[in-house]
């Protein structure tokens, strides 16, 4: 077909090709204007469409960014609310545990102060007053003796009496002083006790003060978050990414644990559901083992929800405490039953493996019967323990799962934003490229038909030169023969009419 076309005009392909080329050039020359329009309009249309598309993507990106921001804010606010709640719970604990007994403490301190005051007052140093008759004695003693022996004797007696009275007073004073010292000595442990009590109170108040500072800080962050502070947004985004990777890592570990669990119970499951039935391409026993593991994970989720550690199911979190506790007990019991079943399945697996081993040995020509190795019980016990522990370990998957789900929302949002941005840029670039390409194609088109174009240009330039020359001639004639010009213009008017 192609060869026929190539030799349509001549037996010589070269000549035929030349004819085709000429025809093509002629056709292209004839349709030059239309082709230019098609190329220009196509390029322009594509450019406009791509520009619109890019703008639409930009708008979508903006919406998505806002949505991401809302999600981040919601997640951050949720975390902060939890942190503030936790701080308040701690404050509540401190107040109810330590400061709950404050009235008793206050009474104790007050009693101690009263006692100290009383003791202090009792310990006041009041010198003993001399007897009231001493003034009279002093007056008598001041009477001149005048050598009268009777008077002297009386005075001596008075002197002795006075001295004995002073000695007694001094003794009384010393006794009182000792008593006061004893009382003051007794005050010392009370002061110490008071100091200790006050130190304790100070510690508790300091703790409360610390907590209140934390709460203040959280509240500040919360306020900043509400105000849409960019620093906080960046911190939240970084935290979300960190959470995504960490929880993803923990989930991978959990999946590996689940696989080990699956291996433990898949084989003995065939004892229950049979080893021959298949659902699709999967063994029914494998599916049954998988279902048990999934149920364990589901129970773990409910357990964590009931403990209010996770918040994946708001309906569980919002249950009243009695119902929640019931749910907690039920899920824990189911989990324990499943763990026990897994432990027994793990033991059964060991028995089956031993039986199979014995059969293989007998088939290989070895001794028949179950091989009883000395420490054969160790792996059996180990498998049983693993079978019991793994379901509980899997129950904790709920925690990284929640983090992963929450962080995935923001991370996916970020990825979508980036993808949209890239697509928008590519769309814009491709629109511009096509627009320029259409211009290049127009030039290329003209390049192909450059010979007729050159000819056209020559003809046009000749025509214009001729026209110019004619106009000049006319002007010249006008200058020389004005009436002829008038006549000519009259002709033109007539022709127009």
């Amino acid at each position, binding site marked *: 077909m192609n060869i026929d076309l190539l030799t349509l005009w001549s037996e010589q392909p070269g000549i035929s090709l030349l004819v085709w080329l000429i025809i093509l050039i002629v056709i292209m020359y004839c349709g030059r204007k239309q082709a230019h329009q098609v190329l220009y309009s196509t390029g322009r249309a594509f450019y406009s469409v791509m520009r619109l598309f890019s703008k639409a993507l930009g708008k979508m990106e903006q919406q998505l960014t806002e949505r991401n921001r809302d999600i981040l804010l919601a997640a951050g606010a949720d975390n902060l609310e939890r942190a503030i709640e936790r701080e308040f719970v701690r404050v509540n604990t401190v107040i109810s545990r330590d400061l709950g007994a404050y009235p008793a403490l206050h009474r104790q301190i007050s009693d101690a102060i009263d006692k100290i005051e009383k003791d202090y007052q009792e310990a006041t140093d009041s010198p003993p007053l001399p007897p009231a008759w001493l003034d009279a004695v002093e007056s008598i003693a001041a009477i001149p003796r005048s050598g009268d022996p009777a008077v002297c004797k009386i005075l001596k007696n008075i002197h002795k009496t006075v001295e004995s009275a002073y000695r007694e007073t001094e003794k009384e004073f010393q006794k009182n002083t000792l008593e006061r010292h004893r009382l003051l000595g007794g005050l010392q442990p009370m002061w110490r006790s008071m100091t200790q009590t006050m130190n304790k109170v100070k510690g508790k108040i300091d703790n409360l003060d610390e907590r209140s500072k934390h709460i203040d800080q959280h509240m500040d962050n919360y306020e900043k978050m509400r105000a849409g502070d960019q620093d906080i947004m960046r911190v939240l985004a970084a935290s979300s990414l960190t959470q995504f990777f960490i929880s993803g890592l923990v989930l991978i570990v959990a999946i590996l644990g689940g696989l080990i669990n699956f291996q433990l119970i898949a084989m003995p499951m065939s004892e229950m559901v049979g080893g021959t039935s298949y659902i699709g391409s999967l063994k029914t026993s494998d599916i049954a083992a998988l279902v*048990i593991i999934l149920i364990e994970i589901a129970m773990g989720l409910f357990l964590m929800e009931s403990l209010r550690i996770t918040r994946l199911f708001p309906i569980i979190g919002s249950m009243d405490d009695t119902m929640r506790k019931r749910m907690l007990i039920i899920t824990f019991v189911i989990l324990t039953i499943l763990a026990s079943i897994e432990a027994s399945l793990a033991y059964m697996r060991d028995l089956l493996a031993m039986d199979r081993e014995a059969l293989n040995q007998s*088939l290989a020509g070895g001794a028949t019967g179950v091989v009883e190795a000395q420490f054969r019980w160790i792996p059996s016990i180990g498998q049983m323990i693993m079978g019991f522990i793994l379901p509980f370990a899997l129950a904790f998957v709920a925690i990284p799962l929640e983090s992963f789900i929450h962080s995935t929302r923001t991370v996916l949002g970020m990825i979508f934003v980036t993808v949209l941005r890239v697509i928008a840029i590519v769309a814009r670039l491709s629109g511009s490229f096509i627009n320029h390409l259409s211009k290049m194609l127009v030039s290329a088109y003209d390049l192909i038909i450059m010979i007729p174009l050159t000819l056209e240009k020559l003809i046009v330039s000749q025509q214009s030169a001729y026209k110019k020359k004619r106009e000049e001639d006319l002007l010249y004639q006008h200058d020389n023969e004005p009436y002829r010009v008038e006549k000519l213009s009259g002709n033109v008017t007539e022709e127009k009419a």
Partner: protein
Amino acid sequence: MKSIIHLIMAAPIITIAPLIFLLMSLTGCGEIKNNNRAVYLLLDTSGTYSKELSKAQLIMNYLLATLDSGDSIAIARIDSGSFSEKDIIVKATFDQRPSTANSQKRKFKETLDGFVKTMSRGSNHTDISGGLLQAAEYLYETGAAEKHVLIFSDLEEDLVKGHIRKFDLPLDGIHVSALNVTKLRSDNVDPRDYLKRLEQWQNRIQEGGGEWRVINDLERLDNLIVQR
């Protein structure tokens, strides 16, 4: 102690059974795939070949180790008239529970070992075609997805006068494998006899719709049946 073990083994069955029943009933509407395999081993007990029977035990051990719960196996002898149920030495379809299947395998092995020990004299004739017919009948009855006939013989058919076996064998979808095809004295004189004999059997099996292969080295049984 045994009762405790049984109790431990039974505990999960009692507890999980309702759950599994629920699962089975939920998924019961789905497609249940039949992956079972059935193997029929024909042992040549003719005079020239009967001394090779000890090697057949190797094949049986391989089969027992390879086959699983739900699979079927039968071992039959090739004698003067092999198209008969009486020639089946031992047959079994392994239980769904692996532990029971293991017990069946042990019993199976004991039976065949006993047969090989008590086998004193070989048959006068060799009716391989009759054995193949019997094998096909058994295999189709099992309804297995994968059907194998293993012929442990020198493939030298020697029919009783009057027995008619010259017709197409119905072996559609059956994999026929000739094992340990020993060379006869005459084959050594003219090896073309041996090759011709193999070719004849190949044509016959393939005309019947079966697949043909020869494995003479019993150490290469690994790929005979794909292990699951």
